């Protein structure tokens, strides 16, 4: 993408004013976004992102400059703008760049750039037909298709020079069921670190039917009651609760400045014994998987909580400097427009010993959430909230009537202590996670779990 000699000159220029580390991130990305609505392709967008991010550290000070100007002149100007923020004499010379070839950990068999768009449209239309024909109350179906090829080059003053190609594909189906004035959505959005082979092998029947089934079920659902209940959260995307309740709080971004409720607590009991929480960027071809992170570090499996004991954090280079710890391969960013920071990849609660059937039959009166929507956390206080897409009342150990409009709120550290059952059916779901370094693909995952008490905010009101 850029020659080694230009990059070397840029790193050298970036260090001119006393920086002790400099890094160049080059990105050339091709994306396709298609949207189908009411059976017709409504938009089809293709584009190429190209830009360069230059980062300089001096101690804990971090400076970032980015530009779309890939000329030698443009890059040296950006490096100069970054260097300007640091006032001092040059203190180090960059190490000689050593090109390192890292084999792709997530092989791609069919690059979507080489696939005719007509084939992509066919997949969308198939999904549309399945979802639309699920039930006569399905009024509207939207199918979105996304693929990207992101080529990156990462080089730094320690001599690192690596390149990586990330190919990702995702299909999102949203169904809306309607009756009279009532409308309810249901959606499903599978994705993977794969090429078009992902779409060819995708179980469209399952995903499209599920999107519609959720919408139709919720159309006939009662408003969710409010109050404190035991809550059973099903596997796969249910893991979004721990992503919010605990994952963000374990990121160096918040831990390093001691703003997180989990700061300085390694070795302490932060969760109930049944909780083991892992972030693993190496899972084969998963949506949140990476070969190397956006600082050029190899992806790895990081055990964050083991049997309730806090074992580690998610650390990027800058966070590591502040904490006196090594990177955990967790430096990620949306694009060259963001300096990387510590982020999750595929994060999940590990399998426990219960079965889903045991959890449900052991719950006298509670709420069962089959599919979760999105959520949000305040990492400083640990307060989180998230929306439930599909919920049911549990009564006398059985799943009862469907409930709509439920929101779960709580405090991360407290909820972690209240997990009292973990099943053995771990699965992962794809999502986009937004934080300081932009929006990135991540997986959330878990087996079915039960939290002994959570606050449920429903549209029905109290009691």
């Amino acid at each position, binding site marked *: 993408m850029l020659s080694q000699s230009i990059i070397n000159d840029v790193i050298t220029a970036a260090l001119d004013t006393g920086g002790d580390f400099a890094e160049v991130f080059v990105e050339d990305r091709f994306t396709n976004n298609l949207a189908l609505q009411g059976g017709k392709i409504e938009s089809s967008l293709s584009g190429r992102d190209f830009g360069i991010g230059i980062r300089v550290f001096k101690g804990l000070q971090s*400076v970032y400059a980015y530009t779309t100007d890939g000329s030698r002149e443009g890059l040296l100007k*950006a490096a100069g*703008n970054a260097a300007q923020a640091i006032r001092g004499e040059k203190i180090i010379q960059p190490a000689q760049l050593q090109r390192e070839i890292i084999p792709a950990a997530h092989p791609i068999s069919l690059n979507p750039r080489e696939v005719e768009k*007509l084939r992509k449209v066919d997949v969308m239309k198939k999904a549309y037909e399945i979802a639309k024909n699920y039930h006569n109350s399905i009024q509207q179906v939207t199918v979105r298709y996304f693929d990207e090829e992101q080529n990156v080059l990462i080089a730094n003053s320690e001599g690192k020079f690596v390149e990586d190609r990330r190919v990702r594909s995702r299909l999102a189906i949203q169904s809306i069921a*309607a009756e009279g004035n009532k409308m309810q959505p249901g959606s499903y959005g599978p994705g993977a670190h794969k090429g078009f082979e992902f779409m060819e092998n995708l179980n469209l029947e399952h995903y499209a039917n599920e999107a519609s089934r959720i919408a139709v079920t919720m159309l006939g659902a009662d408003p969710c009651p409010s109050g404190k209940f035991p809550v059973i959260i099903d596997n796969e995307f249910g893991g979004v609760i721990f992503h919010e309740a605990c994952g963000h709080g374990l990121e160096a971004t918040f831990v390093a400045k001691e703003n997180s409720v989990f700061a300085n607590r390694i070795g302490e009991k932060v969760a109930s014994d049944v909780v083991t929480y892992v972030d693993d960027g190496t899972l084969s071809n998963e949506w949140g998987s990476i070969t190397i992170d956006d600082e050029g570090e190899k992806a790895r499996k990081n055990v964050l909580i083991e049997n309730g004991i806090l074992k580690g954090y998610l650390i990027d280079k800058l966070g590591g400097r502040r904490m006196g710890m090594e990177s955990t391969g967790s430096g990620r960013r949306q694009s060259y427009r963001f300096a990387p920071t510590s982020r999750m990849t595929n994060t999940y609660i590990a399998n426990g010993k219960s079965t889903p059937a045991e959890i449900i039959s052991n719950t006298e009166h509670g709420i069962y959430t089959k599919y979760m929507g*999105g959520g949000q956390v305040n990492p400083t206080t640990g307060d989180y909230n998230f*929306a439930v897409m599909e919920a049911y009342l549990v009564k006398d150990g059985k799943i009862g009537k469907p409930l709509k409009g439920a929101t779960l709120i709580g*405090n991360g550290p407290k909820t972690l202590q209240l997990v009292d059952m973990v099943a053995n059916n771990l699965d992962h779901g794809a999502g986009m996670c937004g934080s300081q370094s932009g929006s990135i693909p991540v997986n959330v995952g878990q087996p079915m779990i039960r939290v002994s008490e959570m*606050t449920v905010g*429903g549209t029905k009101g109290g009691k």
Partner: protein
Amino acid sequence: MNLQEFKDKLFQLGEEHGFTDMELYYEREEKFVCELFKGEIDSYDTSEVFGTSFRGLYKGKMGYAFTEKLDEESLSYLIENAKENSKFIEDEVQEEIFAGSEKYGEGNFYSADLAEVTIPEKINLLKEIEKHIYSYDERVTGTDYFMLSSGETEKAILNSKGLNLSEKVNHVGIYVSVIVKQGDQVKNGVYSKFTRDFSILNPKEIAKHAVEEALSQLYAQSAESKNYPVLLRNDAASALLQTFIPVFSAEITQKGQSALKGKTGESIAVPLLTIIDDPFLEEGLLSSNFDSEGAATVRKDIVKDGRLVTLMHNRKTAQKDGVESTGNAYKASYKGALTVAPTNLHVVPSDQSYDALVSSISEGIIITELSGLHSGANTVSGDFSIAANGYYVKDGKVQNAVNQMTIAGNFYELLNNIEAIGSDLEFSMGFMAIGYIGSPSLLIRELAVTVE
């Protein structure tokens, strides 16, 4: 390759490939973002980026493609992809390349004074604010987000029908989130402000706002979960309005995803409520003389005295509904397709102060902050159940902060349940927001409140 050369080559190549009408949309942005943490510069970002998007009619259908690199490879990439993309578009009403409006507003949304403010002056402002933050109260332990962002954006639309529009705007913004600790209680308080006038950013006032906000959340208590009259403070009210603003878009009604379909001219809210979309607002972050397809923008009532006056339209949605465009064509950036969005849209304030509204409540809840709006609100049905922070009010006086809550209701019903509107109009930039949305505080007759 420079832009002019790129455009000429691109349109020529497009013509050879059979494109009839073509447009090049261009954006250039310079930004400076700085974060401060305990006296040290924690992050310092400067950037200069541009991007272009090509839109062209091929066999009567509109194809799109964008690039951030002006080279030979991009020329053929744009034309080939736009051509392939056009082939699948099946909408009966097609977009068009627009020759331009008869006349345009002449608003100036670029402050030469702001452009003169140097980076050291901006950093100095942050340092001043921080000094006041730490000296204001000993319970302040830090900030979890504290930044200044300033930017200059230039956009241009050049097309084969001879339209040639360009505009340059700038802004500066401050965002502070302060952490306070009292015993084992940890709370934070946020304050943000966007402007084109650097001189109004008063360090002492900004610090005071943020710290007071954090302190006011301490000693939170539980409250009975039930239906209460709810005062949505201006920032919370604008955040909620922001979430539901798509229901006023003709694109959304045409997709059957808004209950306002076919309601133009009808009463949809209490007569107290008037909502204006004002592209010429002097301090508006999204002020502009032309929209993203080159049509002149106009100031108009969306809701007037409770009656829906118009939906927001671009030229395509207007054609479908048999009306005129309202100048609300919008592209999130050159990467996006043409859609519909507000400019600076706000609820028109009344003359009642926030304090007067509070003292009118015999028992109720004030909501100061909403979170999880992107997931807890269903813009299709209007139902929402959203996490919230705020205070408990008894006999017209704030008693205490309340533990994390959810408030639940329905947006369409809420429009008919507004009892009073404050005088304290404030704008907010929300998470993943479209539009610059403002509201004064709104007193709502009743919402379901669940307390943790």
